C-alpha cells in the first residue's frame, strides 16, 4: 500500500454563488498516477486546481475544507503559495511554452526559485529536465530556438520539462494529450509511466482508455461530487456505482 501524498477532506469550492465541489474526500497516493474522469463541468479540473491553489487568482472563488500535502494543510493563509507551486507543478491542456528559447523555458523556473546559480548548474538542470521529459535528444542542438517552434507533442513535453525543472513532488496534468496526435500522446503516456517513479501525478482526462493505460487509481466526478474512487482496474472492469458504470460505458445522459 502506497503512502498518501495528498489528502482532501470535505473540500468545497464556490465560484460566487455557484458551488463547484461538494465535500470531496480523496486520497492520492505517493508516486502513483491518479486519473480523474467525468463529464465537462463535473469539477475534476477545479479539484486539481485546488492542489496548487490556482483558484487563488479567481476573486469570487471560495474554498472550504482541507487539502493536505504530506499532512500539512495548504489552504492556510501563512503558506507561501510560490513555494507550494514549486512543489506542485502543472501541465495544461494546450501546450503553453513561454515565447522564449527552449533553454529559457526550462531555466526560468529554477531561476525565480533561486536554483541553479551558475551557468553550469542551470545547464545541468536544463539537460536533466529535458532528458526526464524525453525531449533532450530531439532538441539538444537547438536549445536557443524558440519553444513555440516545436511540434505540439514536443511543446507539451517541453512544458513537462519546465514543470519538473524546479524538482516538484507532484505534477498536475489537465488533459495533457487532448491537443495531441496518437503518436505524441503515446510519448506523453510513456513519459508519465517513467515520471511516476519520482513524482505523484494527477491527470484529468476525457479519454477512458488513457485513464486505464496510465493510472493506478481513478476517481469519477459528477456535478461537483466525487461519486466513486478506486483502483483503476476495478473501476473499469466492475465499478460499484451505477453512475460510474453508465458514464464509462457511454450510457450517460
Amino acid at each position, binding site marked *: 500500500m502506497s503512502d498518501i501524498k495528498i489528502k482532501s477532506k470535505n473540500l468545497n469550492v464556490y465560484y460566487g454563488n455557484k458551488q463547484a465541489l461538494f465535500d470531496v474526500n480523496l486520497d492520492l497516493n505517493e508516486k502513483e498516477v491518479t486519473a480523474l474522469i467525468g463529464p465537462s463541468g463535473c469539477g475534476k479540473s477545479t479539484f486539481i486546481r485546488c492542489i496548487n491553489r490556482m483558484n487563488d487568482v479567481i476573486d469570487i472563488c471560495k474554498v472550504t475544507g482541507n487539502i493536505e500535502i504530506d499532512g500539512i494543510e495548504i489552504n492556510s493563509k501563512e503558506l507561501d503559495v510560490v513555494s507550494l507551486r514549486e512543489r506542485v507543478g502543472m501541465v495544461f491542456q494546450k501546450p503553453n511554452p513561454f515565447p522564449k528559447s527552449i533553454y529559457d523555458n526550462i531555466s526560468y523556473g529554477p531561476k525565480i526559485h533561486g536554483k541553479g546559480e551558475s551557468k553550469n548548474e542551470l545547464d545541468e538542470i536544463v539537460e536533466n529536465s529535458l532528458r526526464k521529459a524525453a525531449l533532450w535528444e530531439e532538441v539538444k542542438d537547438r536549445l536557443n530556438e524558440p519553444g513555440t517552434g516545436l511540434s505540439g507533442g514536443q511543446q507539451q513535453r517541453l512544458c513537462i520539462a519546465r514543470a519538473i525543472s524546479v524538482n516538484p513532488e507532484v505534477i498536475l496534468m489537465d488533459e495533457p494529450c487532448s491537443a495531441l496526435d496518437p503518436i505524441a500522446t503515446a510519448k506523453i503516456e510513456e513519459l508519465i509511466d517513467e515520471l511516476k517513479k519520482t513524482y505523484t501525478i494527477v491527470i484529468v482526462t476525457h479519454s*477512458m*482508455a488513457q485513464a*486505464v493505460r496510465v493510472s493506478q487509481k481513478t476517481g469519477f466526478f459528477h456535478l461537483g461530487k466525487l461519486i466513486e474512487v478506486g483502483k483503476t482496474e476495478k473501476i*473499469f*472492469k*466492475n*465499478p460499484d456505482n451505477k453512475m*460510474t*458504470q*453508465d458514464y*464509462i*460505458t*457511454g*450510457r*450517460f*445522459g
Partner: protein
Amino acid sequence: MNNEHTVKSYEEELQHLTDSVIKMGSLTETQLVDSMDAIIKVDKDSIDKIIKSDEEINKFRSKIDTQIMTLLVKRAPMAIDLRETISSLKISQDLERIGDLSKSNAKKVKPLPLDLPDELLSNLKRLGDLVIKQLNDVIDSYVNKNFDKAKDVWEKDEQVDDLTYIAMESVIEFLSKDKKNLDFSTHLIFATKNLERAGDHITNIAESICYLIKGEYLKGNRPKGKVIQE
C-alpha cells in the same frame, strides 16, 4: 441495464452478440437432445442430421468471434460491456465443445446393436437428461442474467459426476457378463465420458455468467462427485 448507450448502434451490436450466443445455445441444446435420443433409441437414421447440425453451431462460433472482434475494435468496451463481450467469447467456445461432444456421441450410435437392454441404457439416459437440463438452465440464466440460477448449475455438476460414475458402472457390469459386448460397450463408456465432459463445459459457462453479472469469479472449488474424488 436500464440505461441504453448514447450510441444506438453500440447498443444494437451488443444485443446482436447476446442474440447470437442465445441462438447458438439453443442449437447446441437441440443437438444434445437429438444425440441422446439417437443413443437411447439406437436411431441410426438421425446420425447424419446431428453431424450436420454441428456445422451450423461452428458457423455461429465464427460469427460470434467476428462480432466480438468488431466490438473490441470499434467500441473498446468497459465494465459490464467488457464483461459481456469477454463472457460471450468464452461461452461460445464452451458451446462449440459441447456441440463436438454431441456429434461424437451421435457417431457412437452406429456400432450399437438394436436390441440393447433397457437397464443398460436407463442410467445413461438419467445422466443425459441431467446434462440437458443443466444446459437448458445455464442458457436460461444467461438470457435472464440470473446469478443464482447460474451458480445453482455450477453446484449441480456434482450430480453429473455421480451419475457418470453410476452409468459407467452399469456398462462395465454388462460388459463383464459377456466379452462379446466389448466393442459397443466401449463406445457407451466413451459416450458417458463425453456427457460428463459436456457437464464440465456447462459449469464453465455458469462461471462465465456469474463473472458477467457480478464481475467476480466464483470462489472456492466446485463441488466434485464421487467419480472425481475417487
